C-alpha cells in the first residue's frame, strides 16, 4: 500500500471526554511501548541521540495525539489531548490510518511526505532518526501491539486494515 488521500475516516464518539480517553489508553499504550522496547532493543540505537526527546504524533481526525519519548530506560507512549500538547522536539501529523500504515510497515514515509499526506515539523533529524529506527524491524509495530492483546487486539487491527483497504 502506498500513501493515499482516500483513507476512510475513523469514527470517534464525539461526546466521550478526551481526557477520559487518554486516561483509559494510558495502561494500553504503556504496555505496548514497554513490549516493543523489550523485544527490539536494537531500534533504540538508531534514535539514540534523541532518546530523551519528545515527539508528538498527531492523527488528524482524532481529538488526542500520542506523546512518545524513545528512552530505552524509560520508554514513554501516552495519549494527550490535542489542545494540550506537551513541549516537543518534533511533530508528525497525518490521518490515523496513514500513521497506522506507516508503523505497520506498509506505507513509505517519503511517499507520504511527497503526496503531502504526512506533515513533519520541528527537528527533522529527530524525525528521520525515529523513522529509520522503526523501519529496522521485521514485521510490524502495529502487529506486535495487536498481538499483545490477543484475539481482540488482532481483530481491531484487522478491522483498521480493512478500513484502509489493506485486507
Amino acid at each position, binding site marked *: 500500500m*502506498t500513501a493515499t488521500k482516500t483513507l476512510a475516516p475513523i469514527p470517534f464518539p464525539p461526546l466521550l471526554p478526551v481526557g477520559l480517553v487518554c486516561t483509559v489508553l494510558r495502561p494500553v499504550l504503556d504496555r505496548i511501548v514497554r513490549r516493543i522496547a523489550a523485544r527490539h532493543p536494537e531500534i533504540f540505537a*538508531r534514535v539514540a541521540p534523541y532518546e530523551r526527546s519528545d515527539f508528538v504524533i498527531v492523527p488528524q481526525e482524532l481529538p488526542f495525539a500520542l506523546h512518545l519519548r524513545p528512552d530505552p530506560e524509560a520508554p514513554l507512549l501516552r495519549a494527550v489531548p490535542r489542545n494540550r500538547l506537551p513541549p516537543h522536539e518534533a511533530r508528525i501529523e497525518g490521518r490515523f490510518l496513514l500513521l497506522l500504515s506507516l508503523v505497520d510497515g506498509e506505507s513509505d514515509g517519503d*511517499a507520504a511526505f511527497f503526496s503531502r499526506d504526512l506533515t513533519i515539523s520541528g527537528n*527533522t533529524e529527530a*524525525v528521520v532518526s525515529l*523513522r*529509520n529506527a522503526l523501519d529496522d524491524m521485521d514485521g510490524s509495530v502495529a502487529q506486535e501491539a495487536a498481538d499483545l492483546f490477543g484475539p481482540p487486539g488482532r481483530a481491531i487491527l484487522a478491522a483498521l486494515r480493512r478500513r484502509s483497504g489493506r485486507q
Partner: protein
Amino acid sequence: MTGAEDFSAAGELVCPAGTPAALRTAVEAGADTVYCGLRNATNARNFPGLNFTPEELQASVAFAHARGAKVLLAVNTYPPAGQLALWHEAAAIGMRAGVDAFIVADMGVARHIAETWPRARLHLSVQAAASSPEAIRYYCTHFGVRRVVLPRILTIPEIRAIRREIPCEIETFVFGNHGLMVEGRCSLTNWLTGQSTNLDGVCSPAAEVTFERADDGTMRSCLSGFTIDRFAAGETAGYPTICKGRYAAPHRPEGYYAFEEPVSLNLGRLLPELMAAGVHAFKIEGRQRSKSYVRQVVGAFRRAVDSIRSGHDPDLADLVALTEGQKETQGAFQTKKWR
C-alpha cells in the same frame, strides 16, 4: 570474497538497503544483489539512524548469501586529504564481513583496496562520474574495476557505444531519485551547509532542514535557514535539496526549478532496450527509503526482469505513488532533451 564469482546474468537487480530489515526485505522480494553502507561518512547515504554496524553487516551478508543474493558495500565518498583511516577501516570491515564487492569513487580508496586485497571486486560508483570510455578504461586498467555505474546523463545509444569500448560490466539506475546534477561533483549543499554528499555522505543534512507549514496549507522547505521551495496547499512536494529547489529569477519572477525538478527516474519501459544495449545490472535507488518502498519496487522490477527473460513484455506495477513529487521521467536515457 574472491572477486572471481560470476554475478548473475544480464538484468541483475541491484537493490537498496538502509537497514538490516530492509536488506532482508530486498532479498525476499527478489533482489539479486543488495547494496548498503556503514554508519559513517564513507558512503553517500550517511543519514541519521540509517545504515549498518559492522556486526549488522556481517549478519546481513550471511543472510543474503544463504539465499543466493550478493551484498555490495558502498564506500563511495571522497576522503578529505590525509584522513583515509575511516575509509580504510570500512574496507577492512567489508572484507571481514565477506561482501561481494565494494562500490568506490575515490581513486585513493580504490587503490588501497586493490593493493591490499587484490582479489576484491571493485565497482565504480556513479559518484566517480565516469561517463566516457577513456575515463572508465582508466579505472579498469589502474584499479581493476569490474563494473561501472554510469551517470544518468547518457542515452541508450550512447550506453551501447560505451559498452563496445570498455572491458567491464555496466550498471545503470532504473528507478528512484533523479538528482543527477554532475554526479560526484555537486557542491550545492556544501555551499549552504558546509557538508556534501561527496565528502560527508549527506546531501541536505536533516539537521539543517526545516519544514514550515502555514495556516493556509502552504509549506516552506528550508535548508540552513534559506527557503528552497514553497508548496501550495495540496501540491506534491520533493526532497529538500538545493538542486530540486524552486527559485525566483529576474526572467522568471514567479519562481521555477532552475536545476532539477522533483521527479523520479523510472525506466521500467526501457528495460528490454537497456538489456539489449549490454547493460548488465539495474540499480534501484533508495537506501533512505522504507521497507515498504523496497518491497514494492524490488518486487515490481523482479517480475519485470523475469518477464523479459521469459520472452514476455514487462509487467510493471504502477509505482508513481512512490516517486518524488509523484512524477516520473525517463530522463536522458530516452532523450537529451529531458530538460
